[in-house]
């Protein structure tokens, strides 16, 4: 029924199967929307936030999706600025994943501010001494960049591309995409960094406080670095999951391996810097503020020293060691483990920099304040995941997200079908071979 919308030269499941899939995920989405409306209509009393936790699971989710969404700006940098043409195979998907991550981040902020109708205040009545203002500016602008990068992909849908204006618009946007990508890199550098800077400047919170250069604490640079390092791993992870679900090869191995290799070296350099930062903080900064390392990790039910070990060693050095070796990158199981660990690692980092900061007692009368989110907070945090799955499903079905898919999955066409869904593009006809068993 929708065959006229499906890209040429590729095979998709039947419409009813697709609608069933969308319905199941859509039910989860509706659950999240219901919780979101509760928060908007009844207010933030629907959450378990309190005087200790002004930042809670939403801010963690926000920082986490922004970090893993960093794959879009870093892949764009490699593709458009450094000219890594091998990444052509995966750049569309990186942009789509980035678009989902950043739109999710803005959605989460929309319910976290409690009164979204006043969201524009941050632009008009800007507090120019706040790192969060910089985050809001750069986040919004970078979402604009990702939208601009995503539009040509939408315009390349078979039916839309038939309209001459849209066809030319898509082409023209491709031509100057390097300008948009460069702007995106500039914006990403500052908002990723400022998110780390927010934690680093909290001199009343010795767990987070760091020294640095001028107004920028070390966390500023570590956050940008970790996003550039682990973001591509998330792109690879989602690509691998999509390939598993669709049971197809969608991206060339050369693209995955190049991205994994660059990501591996980025993770290694980042985790060395993070280790030095942690060592200096534990031996110099924290003692100068009257605390020792174990003050931050003992006498509480959750935050043991294990979490530091997990973040730096298991989810830092281990994936780096796998990804920098050719053998590790070429082994499918090792690659899966490495990208999962890297993504978990950056999420743990954001968790401790948001939530453990709040948990650690800072006054003599304070206690370890534990927090568990309400079901409304959980539902609204799962909502962007459901939204992302639906958008990936729609994009995969109707847009040419994977330019090498038809080459990697040649299909045998029946004469009657050629005029319908699976007609190969003229320039690829010569390359099509019969499908394997």
């Amino acid at each position, binding site marked *: 029924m929708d065959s006229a919308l499906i890209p040429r030269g590729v095979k998709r499941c039947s419409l009813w199967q697709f609608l069933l899939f969308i319905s199941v995920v859509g039910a989860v989405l509706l659950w999240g929307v219901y919780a979101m409306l509760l928060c908007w209509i009844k207010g933030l009393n629907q959450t378990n936030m309190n005087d200790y936790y002004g930042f809670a699971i939403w801010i963690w989710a926000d920082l986490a999706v922004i970090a893993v969404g960093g794959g879009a700006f870093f892949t764009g940098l490699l593709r458009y600025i450094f000219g890594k043409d091998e990444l052509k195979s995966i750049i569309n998907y990186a942009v789509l994943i980035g678009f989902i991550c950043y739109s999710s981040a803005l959605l989460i902020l929309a319910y976290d501010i409690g009164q979204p109708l006043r969201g524009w205040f941050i632009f008009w009545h800007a507090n*120019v001494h706040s790192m969060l203002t910089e985050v809001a*500016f750069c986040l919004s602008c970078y979402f604009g960049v990702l939208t601009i990068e995503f539009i040509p992909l939408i315009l390349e849908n078979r039916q839309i591309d038939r309209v*001459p204006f849209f066809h*030319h618009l898509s082409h023209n946007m*491709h031509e100057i995409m390097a300008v948009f990508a460069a702007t995106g890199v500039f914006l990403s550098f500052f908002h990723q960094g400022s998110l780390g800077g927010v934690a680093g400047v909290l001199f009343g919170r010795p767990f987070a406080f760091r020294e640095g250069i001028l107004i920028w604490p070390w966390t500023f640079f570590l956050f940008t670095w970790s996003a550039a390092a682990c973001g591509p791993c998330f792109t690879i992870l989602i690509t691998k999951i999509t390939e598993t679900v669709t049971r197809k090869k969608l991206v060339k191995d050369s693209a995955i391996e190049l991205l994994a290799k660059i990501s591996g070296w980025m993770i290694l350099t980042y985790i060395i810097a993070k280790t030095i930062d942690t060592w200096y903080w534990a031996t110099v900064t924290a003692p100068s503020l009257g605390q020792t390392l174990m003050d931050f990790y003992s006498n509480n039910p959750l935050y043991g020293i294990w979490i530091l070990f997990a973040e730096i060693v298991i989810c830092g050095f281990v994936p780096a060691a796998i990804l920098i070796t050719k053998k590790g990158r070429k082994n499918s199981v090792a690659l899966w483990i490495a990208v999962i660990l890297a993504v978990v690692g950056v999420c743990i980092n954001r968790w401790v920099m948001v939530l453990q900061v709040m948990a650690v007692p800072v006054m003599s009368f304070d206690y370890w304040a534990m927090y568990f989110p309400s079901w409304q907070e959980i539902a609204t945090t799962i909502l962007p995941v459901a939204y992302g799955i639906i958008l990936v499903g729609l994009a995969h079905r109707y847009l040419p997200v994977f330019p090498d898919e038809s080459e990697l999955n040649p299909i045998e066409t029946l004469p009657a079908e050629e005029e319908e869904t699976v007609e190969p593009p003229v320039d690829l006809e010569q390359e099509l071979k019969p499908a394997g068993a």
Partner: protein
Amino acid sequence: MFPFSFEWIWDMDHVVFMGGLWYALTILGIGMTYCIIKAAIDACRGNDEHHH
């Protein structure tokens, strides 16, 4: 916020922060305007030489 807003102060903080925002928005705006106008001209001329 613009310089004519009552909250505006001519200091480095405002110039850097708001200047950075306008700079980014200007690049995106000019870039998109160029693409749209060129697409309209190309479509009117029936120019269809490119493939991507």
